[in-house]
């Protein structure tokens, strides 16, 4: 895995998000929860493509700003009864730096379908 530094943890507000744009234009949303854990998801809601980075973050979920679907941050799955998944990306905090591997997207189709 090739992690690259993105920003400082402090650059992301608690219960908030920031956006990272890949060279191919794809936007990745990086979330921070109340316990300072970070999560990275493709910035596209499985419903109609709403930008998840703009939603309200609570617990380990984000509510999409367009029609309020709720997406779980650690697995990218929509919360029942809604169904769908968002691609997620490896992300970690090292010495206060947020590091992301924007190339290693993981689709979670199977894990969620089994739910």
């Amino acid at each position: 895995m090739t992690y690259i530094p993105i920003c400082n943890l402090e650059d992301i507000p608690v219960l908030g998000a920031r956006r990272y744009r890949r060279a191919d234009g794809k936007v990745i949303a990086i979330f921070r929860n109340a316990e300072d854990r970070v999560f990275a998801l493709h910035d596209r809601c499985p419903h109609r493509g709403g930008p998840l980075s703009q939603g309200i973050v609570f617990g380990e979920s984000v509510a999409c700003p367009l029609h309020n679907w709720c997406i779980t941050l650690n697995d990218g799955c929509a919360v029942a009864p809604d169904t769908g998944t968002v691609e997620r990306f490896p992300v970690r905090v090292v010495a206060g730096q947020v590091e992301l591997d924007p190339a290693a997207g993981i689709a979670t189709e199977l894990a969620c379908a089994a739910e």
Partner: protein
Amino acid sequence: MQKMKLVVVGNGMAGMRTVEELLKLAPALYDITVFGAEPHPNYNRILLSPVLAGEQTIDDIVLNTRAWYDENGIRLRTGQAIVKIDRRAREVIAADGTRESYDRLLLATGSNPFILPLPGKDLQGVLTYRDIADTQAMIAAAATHKQAVVIGGGLLGLEAANGLKLRGMEVTVVHVMPWLMERQLDRTAAGLLQKSLEDKGLAFRLEAHSEALLGDDAGRAGHVRAVKLKSGEEIPAQLVVMAVGIRPNTALAESAGLHCNRGLVVNDTMQTYDPRIYAVGECVSHRGIAYGLVAPLFEQAKVCANHLAQFGIGRYTGSQISTKLKVTGVDLFSAGNFAGGTGCEDIVLSDPGAGVYKKLVLKDDKLIGAVMIGDTIDGAWYFKLIRDGSSVGALRDRLMFGEANLGDTGHQGQNRAAAMADSAEVCGCNGVCKGTIVKTIQDQGLFTLDEVRKHTKASSSCGSCTGLVEQILMATAGGDYSEAPKKKSMCGCTDRTHQEVRDAIRAQHLTSIPAVQAFLEWRTPNGCATCRPALNYYLLSTWPKEAIDDPQSRFINERSHANIQKDGTYSVVPRMWGGETNSGELRRIAHVVDKFKIPTVKVTGGQRLDLLGVKKEDLPAVWKELDMPSGHAYAKALRTVKTCVGSEWCRFGTQDSTRMGQELERALWRMYAPHKVKLAVSGCPRNCAESGIKDVGVIGVDSGWEIYVAGNGGIKTEVAQFFAKVKTHTEVLEYSGAFLQLYREEGWYLERTVHYVNRVGLDHCKARVVDDAANRKALWERLQFALDGEPDPWHEPDKARVDLKQFALVGA
């Protein structure tokens, strides 16, 4: 770790509902065993009536299939009645001697039909109406015999009679009381009901006492042949159904020494006197009441499951109930106290020719009861008003004519849920049609409005179709399933209502979201997208200059100070005071549109310009170069003050409405509120600024200004109500501002002024603003204090705590 053992006695609607709720909360906590005396998996008892009537089959009404029990690892023992509870050994013992030990026991044994102690009650052909076996026996009897008597003219009796009639029998209903369904209907309504049932071919004997059931074999245990009344009349019948009431089935509990008093006595957490033993359903007596309808039982189930799951949250405090009769073609609805009494007023509408009768009972300006027959479209709405207990004074004149009559843009003429085509759209916001809702209710076995919302999205947005969805739910699921909470909690994170939260914030002087959540024992670590914005508003409006805004608890529009669009871009609406602009502003707008390649510029319905399709990264620069104030088109705040040209130009103008509007807008902008706030000022009663549908509408007349409040032009058009007449501009500012401050302090989050005023009553607002000059001045001062020095987020982002880093991308 070994799982705890939960044993459920009673495989019926309340017991299994509790298990379902429990699995949702704590799927792995218990090892569950269910005993059911009936040989069937759990089925929808309510729908026995449509089965009897031949409208559905037994297979249609199964709620939990055997496969469902297997999938959830639940051992199901059907056809096994529990005969004894050994509380010492913590074991239950079944009729065949099987023993099962428990850590927690749930009793849900339902009730038994009451059997009149008449001679001949044990004859063949004498039945009660409670379960599948009874229903099948009735269906069989109808196939071989001609005449039936139903004893009891209540809900069950009439449904039984109707079903038997549809199966080809001649049916007579014998009832002791002077009219049918006396516990749900007044005499007039019952008379209409009786007439429509007579039209369907049923016969009635009212005030008739059954004396004996006569057998075909003169006294010996043969087959029933007739019912003999005290009057001497003998009504021939080869089938007699007794439907004279139910008794909580407490025999098992009593034999185990549990305290019973017309039901197994439980507390607000659904525990019996033995804390390891819980009970729910018809067998239970809660605060002295044993319920016989499913809606309250499901509420009990929810509370019980929460405690079994060891969350320990929620108390059951009792329910309001409503009744519908499931006889196709007969519309009947009854809820609350329909009989009235001292201090009550009745509003009655009666059209016997058309078979329509409606009676509404009011007390202290609140709706407390309703009976309807022939036209029950508004049942769900009235029931909601009864449950909410809010003031209906302002609606009084129109109450009788129903919700549709209050103006219901885009939904008129679609009220008859049953008559709607499957392809007809019910929810305009989410594009959900009736067929989808019906299918989802059936496939997923849904019971409550909330569940339908979650699964179909219908009624989950603007809510204007809620009544319709409730009706479809009733029509499809069979009963009135609308959950009946007396108080509505803010969201799933808490049981507190909006009012309780507001009160606590003021009384305890709470000034931050974590403080409120800690004090009121929120059950989630940091709330959710529903409660956080509400809490943020309550804090800011209660403790201005003291509570600190939390941008992460605001919806994106208020966090980025622009409206998010479907493609993730934003729109920018600069303020144009009173809808007036000038060449300088228009030039700057044109320049910004070109420079940032903004794709669309549109004149809004609020008399200003909307720049649509702005990239998030460009927002700060766009604001700067526009050099115009924020229009707050994105906020729960003062939006626009629409004006007409007024006396400066217009040949009819009596007052300078443009200037008045601008004064109001300058005084009130940056004012956050429970919901958005819109004003209008017209220069004469021709009302070109449409003041009649605004939160505050002002109309100039020769002698001064008329002020109207609580209008709404949105989802449901509501005409504003006359508030006060004043003379000067200063007074217009003071009265309008004081009214809005009252709304800011008392309104619930996302409650527009119309809903707020409907809840508290217009008189309440008038008493505090119009009649009480000192209070009015105090309100107006508090508003000015709150607004004083408030920053414009577009131009003083630091002061407004705008998170400026959000606009840029990271890692670039």
